C-alpha cells in the first residue's frame, strides 16, 4: 500500500473517534450536578430567581432537546465558535487562541530541553557505565522521576527568582521568563527519557554488531553513533505519547508561574464553573492528542512499510 492511501484511510478511521470525543466533551458538562443557567447567573453576581433561570435557559438554548443542542454545539464548534464565557461574555475561541501560543511555546521549549538533556545524560551514562558519573546520574534520574513538579518549581523560584534574583518569578515577559517554567515542566520527562535511552543503549552495546564495528577499527565516535541509532526505537514510540502530554500537563506549571496559557485558563474556569471554557479545553486537547498520535503513526509508517498493513487492522 502506498503512503498516500494509508494516510487517507487513517484519516477516515479518525472520524468516528473525533465524533466520540466531541460527544464526550459535550456530555461531560451536561452530567454536572449544577445547572448551567444557574451558574451563568451566579457568576454575574445576580440572584437566580425561577423566572430569571427560565429566561436564561431559553437564551442559552437549554430548553431544547439534548440531541438538538449537541448538534448545534458541534456545528458551531466545527465553524470555530465555541460559545461565550459566562464570566465576561467574551468568545471562548478568542480566549483560547490568545492562550494557545504561550502554552505551545512553553511545551516546545520543554521538549527541546528534554531531548537535549536526556540524550546528553544517556551518553554520559553509557560512556561511564558503572563508574561514578553514571551512578550519580542514575541517582539524579531516580530523584527526577519522583519529585513533585510543583515542588521543584517552587524551589527553583525561591533559588533563582527570590534568593539570587536572576529570573522573574512568573508571568510572560521576554525569554528569561521562559527558563524556569520550561525546566520545571521538562524535569520528569528528562529523567524518564534519560533512563529509557541509557538502558537501551547499554543493552545495544552488548550486541555483536558493535563488537564487529570495534573489531573493524572504527573510531569511538562512529561506534557510539551506531549504538545510539539502534537504541532509539523505544524512545521514539514513547515520544509520540509524551509530546501531547507535555501540552496537556502544563496546567500545574502554568498556575505556579502565572503563565497566561491554556492550562491556567482551564483551571481558572473550573473555579468559576465556566463550563464552555472547560468544554473547549477538553475538546481541543483531545483533538491535539489524536492528531499527534496520527502524525507519529504516519512517521513510523514512512520509515517501516510493514507497519502500514498492521496499523489498519
Amino acid at each position, binding site marked *: 500500500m502506498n503512503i498516500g492511501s494509508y494516510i487517507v484511510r487513517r484519516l477516515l478511521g479518525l472520524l468516528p473517534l473525533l465524533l466520540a470525543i466531541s460527544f464526550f466533551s459535550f456530555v461531560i458538562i451536561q452530567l454536572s450536578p449544577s445547572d448551567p443557567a444557574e451558574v451563568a447567573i451566579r457568576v454575574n453576581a445576580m440572584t437566580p430567581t425561577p423566572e430569571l433561570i427560565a429566561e436564561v435557559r431559553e437564551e442559552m438554548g437549554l430548553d431544547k432537546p439534548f440531541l438538538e443542542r449537541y448538534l448545534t454545539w458541534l456545528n458551531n464548534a466545527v465553524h470555530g465558535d465555541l460559545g461565550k464565557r459566562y464570566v465576561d461574555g467574551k468568545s471562548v475561541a478568542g480566549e483560547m487562541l490568545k492562550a494557545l501560543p504561550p502554552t505551545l511555546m512553553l511545551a516546545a521549549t520543554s521538549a527541546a530541553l528534554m531531548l537535549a538533556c536526556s540524550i546528553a545524560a544517556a551518553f554520559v551514562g553509557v560512556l561511564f557505565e558503572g563508574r561514578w558519573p553514571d551512578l550519580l546520574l542514575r541517582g539524579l534520574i531516580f530523584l527526577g522521576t*519522583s*519529585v*513533585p513538579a*510543583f515542588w521543584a518549581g517552587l524551589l527553583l*523560584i525561591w533559588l533563582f527568582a*527570590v534568593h539570587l534574583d536572576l529570573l522573574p518569578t512568573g508571568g510572560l515577559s521576554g525569554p528569561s521568563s521562559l527558563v524556569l517554567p520550561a525546566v520545571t515542566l521538562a524535569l520528569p520527562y528528562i529523567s524518564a527519557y534519560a*533512563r529509557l535511552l541509557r538502558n537501551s543503549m547499554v543493552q545495544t552495546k552488548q550486541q555483536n554488531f558493535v563488537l564487529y564495528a570495534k573489531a573493524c577499527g572504527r573510531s569511538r565516535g562512529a561506534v557510539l553513533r551506531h549504538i545510539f541509532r539502534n537504541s532509539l526505537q523505544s524512545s521514539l514510540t514513547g515520544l509520540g505519547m509524551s509530546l501531547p502530554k507535555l501540552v496537556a500537563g502544563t496546567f500545574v506549571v502554568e498556575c505556579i508561574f502565572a503563565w497566561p496559557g491554556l492550562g491556567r485558563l482551564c483551571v481558572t474556569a473550573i473555579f468559576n464553573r465556566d463550563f464552555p471554557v472547560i468544554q473547549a479545553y477538553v475538546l481541543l486537547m483531545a483533538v491535539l492528542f489524536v492528531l499527534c498520535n496520527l502524525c507519529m503513526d504516519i512517521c513510523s509508517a514512512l520509515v517501516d512499510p510493514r507497519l502500514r498493513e498492521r496499523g489498519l487492522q
Partner: protein
Amino acid sequence: MTFWQSLKRDRPGMACLCFLVLVALAGLLAPYIVPYDPADIDVRNKFASCGWTHWLGTDHLGRDILSRLVYGTRASLGFSLLTMGVTVSIGIVLGMSAGFLRGKVEAFLMRLCDVMMSFPSEVMILAIVGMLGPGLENVVLACVIAKWPWYTRMIRTVTRQYADMNYIRFARVAGYGTPYIIRRHLLPCAAGEIIVLATLDTGAVILMISALSFLGLGVQPPTPEWGMMLGEAKDIMILYPEQMLPPGITILLVVAAFNFLGDSLRDALDPWHHPSREVTV
C-alpha cells in the same frame, strides 16, 4: 512462593516496603501518636522553628507541622491506595470479562477503552473535576475514570494469553465454573503484572492528588494534605522558605519509595529480566 522470596532478597526493595508500611501505619494510628491536634490554631506561636516542643516547627497559623504531615497521610496515601484499589478491581472485572467472554462484550469494551485512552489522562482528570467541582472525592473519581481503561486492557491481554492454555481447558472440562477458574487459575497469573503496574501508578496518583490539592482543586481546608500544605507554604515563600521543605520532602520520599518498590517487584517477578527499569511517561 518464589516471588516473595526474591523480593525478600532485594534489600533496598524491602526497605522501601517497610518504610511505606510504617508511613501507612502512622497515618492509621495518627490520633494516638501525634502530639498536637492538626487543626489546633495557636496564632501567638506561628512560624516556630524546629525544636523539642514542635519537632518540625509550626505553620502560618501556629499549627504543628509534624502532626499535619502525619494526618496528611490519610488524604494523600490513603486516598491514593483507595483509588488504585477501585481502579484495579474495575480492571479485573471488566478485563477478565472481555478476555473470557470475547465477542461483542470484548469488542464494545475495547472500543470504549480506545475512546477513553484517546484523552491524555491529565485532561480527563481536569474535565471531570471541572464538571463535578473541586473536592477530594471528585479527584479520586476522576483518577479512577482516567485509569481504568489501562488496567482493563492489560488484564484482558493477560487473560487472553492464558485462557486458551490446556490447564484452563482441563478445568473447564472438569466442570469448574468461570468464577472459580478466574479466582484459582487466572488471577495468580495476572497478579504479578497488576501489582507492578499498580505500585508504580500509586506514586503517580499521589503526585496527581497532591498537585490538584496544591492548586486548590482537591482536598479542601482545613483537612491537612501534603500538596495543600505546600500550597499554603507557597504564599509565604519569601519570608519563610523552609516551610516548603517538610511536605515536599515527604511527597518525594513516599513517591520515590513506591517507584523503587515497583522496580524491585518487576525484577522479582522476572528473574531473567535485565534490570533495565524502563518507565512509561
